[in-house]
């Protein structure tokens, strides 16, 4: 079926089953491979994107659900908050293997958009759905605090 979706500000006309997970469309149709496949069941957070600015696990979102919405992936996320997060991630050198990091960053940006100066508890509650097998959690927390300071 022909669908039209907006990703990172660009319109894409695609021909897919509307029940296809958004993640497959992003990676296989649009070749936006920054968004990762981790578990496929909303347990790990590696596939986090933004839909109308809110975080969404792309592996459990049917592509039909984002028609008429704005999808943002790690390739397209922008603005002062995203810039501050990117800078903090680089300066603290957060990633180890890196596989989960695009999801971590998308969740961190979503949190900082809602709460400018999150507490440790705010971070725990917002980031608990993003798993890191290298356990970079301590650096992620530091980077979020640092980005919060920079974004102000």
């Amino acid at each position: 079926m022909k669908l039209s979706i907006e990703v990172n500000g660009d319109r894409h006309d695609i021909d897919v089953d509307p029940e296809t997970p958004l993640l497959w469309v992003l990676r296989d149709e649009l070749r936006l491979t920054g968004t990762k496949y981790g578990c496929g069941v909303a347990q790990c957070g590696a596939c986090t994107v933004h839909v109308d600015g809110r975080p969404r696990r792309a592996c459990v979102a049917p592509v039909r659900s984002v028609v008429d919405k704005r999808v943002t992936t790690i390739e397209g996320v922008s603005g002062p908050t995203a810039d501050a997060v990117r800078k903090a991630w680089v300066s603290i050198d957060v990633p180890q293997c890196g596989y989960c990091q695009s999801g971590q960053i998308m969740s961190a940006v979503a949190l900082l958009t809602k709460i400018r100066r999150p507490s440790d508890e705010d971070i725990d509650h917002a980031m608990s759905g993003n798993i890191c097998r290298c356990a970079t959690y301590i650096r992620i927390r530091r980077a979020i605090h640092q980005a919060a300071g920079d974004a102000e």
Partner: protein
Amino acid sequence: MKSFSRNLWAATSLCVAIGLGCVVSCQRSRPPTSEPTWLPADRGLRSVADFAVISDDDERSRALFLEVAKVLQHDRCVNCHPAGERPLQRSGEPHQPLVVRGEDGFGAPGLGCDTCHGESSYLNMPGSPHWHLAPLEMAWEGKSARAICQQIQDPQRNGGKSPAELAQHMTHDELVAYGWAPPEQLEPAPGNQRLLGQLFQAWLDSGAVCPE
């Protein structure tokens, strides 16, 4: 003439007596089976008609609530009416990953329920529009049928709902409807939503007596 009118009178009173008797006895034992519209029993939930055999009104009312409670106490409902700060999943285990109610039941800032739960169930994900946790005063986790019965009638703890509004909620609410439309790995609640609505209404009509 005289005897005719006397006979007529006698006949009329007899008819009235029979009629009255019928009205009285029909009302007392009006068997719910005579209602043609009762939905049939379905997947572990009995029909309202099945309660006709209970002649005592209070006893029938209590039995009807216990039937309603088969749904209310089912995992599909209780998991979203928990007594703590987190939802439950499967057969009452803590929700994975950790998510919290937040201020309004929609989750913490940055990890709302709609990060994962969509408008309808999809793949392994339970879903329904406006997916969020029932407020703490509506918690059913670990409660007896009697306690739930008292609680849902208490406007302080049921969101200020009248009995009619409660019946409406049972029959039409979308989060309630989810109980019969979960993802494949989860067992649906017993019966169906319309049958739940009929049982609940029959319970209200029978005097809304709570089970012991």
